[in-house]
């Protein structure tokens, strides 16, 4: 692909991106490995990299082997915590009487998919039928989850405009739960039939309570999440998810790739899946049948490619910051209709002027 070579030649060499792209690690000296690990940490991928290196039984310098061990311990602890948390959620919502759908990271963990390996995330996302949303919220509150303190603008944005409930945090455990009634498709410009995806959800095997999207829809959901995103701090991780999901499902069924594209067209995500898989193939070597993925990447995809590349100080592409700005603009355009776009921009401008403190002090 011409475009791949064009922009790749402008990117700085990155041991992480090279390893992910199948470039092997024989040429890495201990310092290159150290940089790779630092890149992985920056990308939120240390645990997943550790799992991957362990799986492939890669020989590492002793000091980095310790890092891998430590990361695997952390990843295992995280999975334990997620499964325990899911038990708590199940207990709280046991009497709801409708299916409860698990999405994203929590679903990968519950299903023990390859995408769950080393996957750290901050929220558990669940979907319930709209009619039961209020009851679910009430049951969760009884179980100790509280909606956080948001300013009135954000509360209204959540409840009225995007028809969502703000994230709930457990008052004792501090874990966060995102309760939805629909699949969040943060765009009003692309018509996506996410209802169809929900209607074809299936129960999780072995569970009397949890449901999941079917395989194709899981990949589509991850792809839409990546391509409609505002910021790409976790872009590489999201892309790696798509790669792992695709590879796993394709390994179980030869017809999966075709069914995936067919389903994508059915629900309105035909272009999205194509662009997402182009990126996955470029960076991770995802084995997608040639005939399904013809042609050049769109302009937006080329921008996303730069944003998804390593974001580490030493290895990020020179103009990544500019690309970030452009993509931010694109996301707002995608998400909000014009009359709301202006209002939203005005509010956000005033908020950033007042100063926010997203980091913690020691």
């Amino acid at each position, binding site marked *: 692909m011409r475009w791949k070579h064009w922009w790749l030649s402008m990117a700085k060499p990155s041991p992480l991106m090279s390893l992910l792209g199948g470039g092997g690690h024989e040429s890495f000296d201990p310092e290159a490995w150290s940089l790779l690990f*630092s890149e992985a*940490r920056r990308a939120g991928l240390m645990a997943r990299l550790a799992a991957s290196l362990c799986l492939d039984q890669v020989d590492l310098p002793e000091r*980095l082997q310790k890092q891998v061990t*430590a*990361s695997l311990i952390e990843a295992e602890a995280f999975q334990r915590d997620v499964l325990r948390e899911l038990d708590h959620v199940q207990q709280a919502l046991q009497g709801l009487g409708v299916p409860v759908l698990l999405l994203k990271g929590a679903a990968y963990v519950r299903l023990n998919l390859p995408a769950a390996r080393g996957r750290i995330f901050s929220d558990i996302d669940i979907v319930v039928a709209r009619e039961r949303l209020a009851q679910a919220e009430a049951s969760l509150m009884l179980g100790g989850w509280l909606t956080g303190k948001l300013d009135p603008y954000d509360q209204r944005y959540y409840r009225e405009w995007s028809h969502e409930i703000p994230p709930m945090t457990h008052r004792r455990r501090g874990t966060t739960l995102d309760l939805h009634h629909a699949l969040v498709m943060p765009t009003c410009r692309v018509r996506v039939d996410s209802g169809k995806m929900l209607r074809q959800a299936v129960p999780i095997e072995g569970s009397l309570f949890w449901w999941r999207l079917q395989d194709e829809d899981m990949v589509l959901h991850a792809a839409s999440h990546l391509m409609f995103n505002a910021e790409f701090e976790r872009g590489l991780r999201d892309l790696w998810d798509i790669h792992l999901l695709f590879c796993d499902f394709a390994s179980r069924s030869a017809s999966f790739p075709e069914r995936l594209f067919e389903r994508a067209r059915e629900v309105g995500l035909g272009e999205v899946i194509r662009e997402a898989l182009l990126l996955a193939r470029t960076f991770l070597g995802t084995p997608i049948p040639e005939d399904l993925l013809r042609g050049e990447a769109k302009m937006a995809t080329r921008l996303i490619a730069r944003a998804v590349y390593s974001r580490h100080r030493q290895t990020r592409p020179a103009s990544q910051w500019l690309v970030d700005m452009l993509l931010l603009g694109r996301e707002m355009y995608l998400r909000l209709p014009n009359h709301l776009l202006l209002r939203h921009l005005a509010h956000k401008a005033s908020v950033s002027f007042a100063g926010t403190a997203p*980091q913690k002090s*020691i």
Partner: protein
Amino acid sequence: MLTLSSCTSEQLHRALRDGSFRLYLGQLALKVSSDIPEFIAAFRQLYGDHPVALGGGEYDFDIAISAPALWRRWFRRNASFEFSGDTPFLPMEVGHAHALFEWGLNWAIASFLHHCLILHSAVLEWRGKGVLLSAVSGSGKSTLSAELSEQGWRLLSDELALLDSDLKLIPLARPVSLKNTSIDVIRRRHPTAVIGPLALDTHKGTVAHLKVSADAVGSNLVPAIPKLIVFPKWVEGAPLRVEPVGAGQAALRLIDQAFNYSTLGTEGFRRLVALVRMTEAWQIEYSSLDEARDALETLVAEHG
């Protein structure tokens, strides 16, 4: 091996700028980058005896102390602690940059070295026996550690006990953090001790750091075997009290002060049980540093 004090100022500044500087803290290799002169000066003073490298090499952690924004290099100068390029904390004024480095390093060690059980505890060694001093912040643990370190005890850490899978304590001797009155106490008692610049008005009050002995640094690759767990508490005017603590009780108290006990799961439990079985636990209440030291040396001799 090359130590920080044997580097020229130019060499050091260059290496800190171009990413080729390495600080060796026992088993850990740190890539350190900075262009903040106040930090570099304090760093030279406090880490003079530590082994370093100027030509790059492998590293565990990628740390930078730098200005968070371009304009912050000249106006209302601030410093950020960067870890692999992420900024986990709010920046601080440049005068506090060296304190920020120490706090950030504590955070990094406690957050990522899960091959060890990490307890909030000082670790020292006397006559070949490892001693944990486990106490909540404000109990005088740092002052006591500083005192012991100046009186011939080997310091392994003033904050973090790292217990590996072989049940050994991993040394990471580095500057001891002192707060408020304890700075003066140590200065008075040990006028020749090297204490770094004061960081005034931090969220913990006034903070300064005691440089540890070259011997302690020189032993940073020699683990210690834990023999004693002590729960020290400084109480103004209190007479010395020394009481034994049961192993089970000691375990529960250590869990309270552990960083990654739950992360280690079953292995954490097994390692903790092994620790309390191979040590004796005591609690001491004291107001006199001399009495406390005598008591500890006696405990090591008789029960370690």
